């Protein structure tokens, strides 16, 4: 018979090497009043306080630019959950960032319909146009954004634009950095129910 090594947890019992994470107290975190109020208002609207985890993380992201560890601790203290719980939620969702990203966000759709019409080339063009300015503009390829009618398209600071040509990428980035209206003639708003792409 082979002697397999025995895990000490089996023979001696499991000894936790540190205290399990608790719910942070409000006085332990320096939660801005505005954030606290926002989350508490949300909690009052739902039958269960945990339901506000995504809206609370949106609020954290809006305040700090991304879901910072401290911001997560603050939201956790208001919600009476552990930071790990909220972190687990934040890492599940593509739009919540647990690492620093640029102030402006550009998501270029590379899914089937956009790919057929040049989505990959558009993503390359945006990456090229934003090169060196990553701290200001965060460019990422994204799964279907639900706007295949304006393919190839991009979501720029949460507004949809398309159909875009590769040349539009540089224009859009320049406008973003200059604080101007981005591609006003290419917004989803100005489009009809169907149109010639």
């Amino acid at each position: 018979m082979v002697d397999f090594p025995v895990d000490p947890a089996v023979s001696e019992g499991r000894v936790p090497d540190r205290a399990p994470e608790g719910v942070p107290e409000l006085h332990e975190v320096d939660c801005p009043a505005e954030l606290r109020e926002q989350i508490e208002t949300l909690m009052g609207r739902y039958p269960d306080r945990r339901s506000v985890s995504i809206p609370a993380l949106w609020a954290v992201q809006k305040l700090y630019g991304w879901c910072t560890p401290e911001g997560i601790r603050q939201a956790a203290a208001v919600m009476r959950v552990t930071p790990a719980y909220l972190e687990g939620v934040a890492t599940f969702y593509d739009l919540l960032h647990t690492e620093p990203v640029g102030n402006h966000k550009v998501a270029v759709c590379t899914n089937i319909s956009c790919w057929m019409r040049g989505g990959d080339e558009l993503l390359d063009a945006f990456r090229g146009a934003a090169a060196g300015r990553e701290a200001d503009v965060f460019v990422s390829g994204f799964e279907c954004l639900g706007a295949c009618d304006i393919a190839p398209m991009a979501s720029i600071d949460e507004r949809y634009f398309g159909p875009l040509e590769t040349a539009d990428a540089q224009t859009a980035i320049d406008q973003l950095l200059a604080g101007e209206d981005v591609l006003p003639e290419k917004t989803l708003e100005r489009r009809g129910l169907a149109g010639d792409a």
Partner: protein
Amino acid sequence: MPETRLLLEHAEDPQLRTLAGYKGYGGYATLQKAYREMEAEEILKQLEESGLRGRGGAGFSMGKKASFLPRGEMDKYLCCNADESEPGAFKDRELMQRNPHQLIEGIAIAAIAADAGHAFIFIRGEYDAQADVLDAAVAEAYDAGYLGENILGSRRDLELIVHRGAGAYICGEETALLDALEGKRGNPRLKPPFPAVQGLYGGPTLINNVETLSNVPRIVAHGAEWFRGYGTEQSPGTKVVSVSGCVRRPGNFEVELGVPTRELIYDLAGGPLDGDVKAFYPGGSSAPVLTAAEGLDLPYSFEAMVEAGSMLGSGSIIVADESVSIPHMALRTARFYHHESCGKCTPCREGTNWTVKMLERVVRGEATPMDLDIVASVQENIIGNCLCVLGDSMAMPVGAMVRKFREEFEQVIAEAGPELDEVSRIAAVQGPAETLGAST
């Protein structure tokens, strides 16, 4: 071919999204009628008899789904699934952006039928502009007394919350949506119990798609018979069809169910960009692709698509013309599901991962035709073996592509990349021998 615009009636009017604009076209009259003249049972009966089928993907009878909710005193919930994330689908976006009050009225009426006191619109986080439109419309509806306490002088209350998701395709699956709404990671639940019995916060929950609920006011206003006057026997009503991909005029078109698919693609959407239609997904990227010969002459209905071995799904057609490489399209499809798999069930998590790896080898020219059999068998081992249908949603279209376009896959394998002898092929597939040794 003309469109039949019911849901998209007056959609070009930018004022439609305001309460005044919507009421100008007779909006909220049905809600008043429902509160003043109708019993919950009567509304439920109209919905059941109308034969309205869910417009989110599964095509299940909406009235029947609502009738599964238990009666009696308990907290019940209504969730509107606005997490439209199926590649190719963009009709709910249009309906919410252009006519948010139609949806709110539908929710308010359906809540009477379901006896729900709390309703939620779970909208995908990417639809920020549409969520803003909904927020504004919901605020107007509260002010006008169509939502809130003692609606229209009745003893009924309804709280409606617009809940923004944060980017996860899986949240369109109804039990994952419930978990996300409860503030958890959006993992699907084991069924049964079905949400109608035990859903949000453990209470009976009715979950319907945006387009399904948007149909409710008209059905209750004009009756089930009127609704059945549109569409086919098994697919009554109209459908907002999103047509995209290689077509000249992509967009949303509302037609009666059962119209010729060819006319949808060639007439309304302007036909293919380059040459002829090669294949198309008839119901979003989860639907098994149909070749032009198989699909173009079918009526666009739930039953015809099922009979052809595919599905109507969310009613979204993605057209591939002759310029599109099917193996690359299969890879693009698989990558999406791999990225979106929540990782809970092994067949989906591993199956999507290996399918992507194998299809990458195919397009790099590092595969052998035998690998295509493995790709096909992996798909068969995913279908029906998971808690939800995300894995199936990759397995069905990818399996269909490998089966129907096998010659093209073999050609890509033969043409792409440098000529490899058998040993380097194995090395390319399995990695160098020492790595193999280390891992075993």
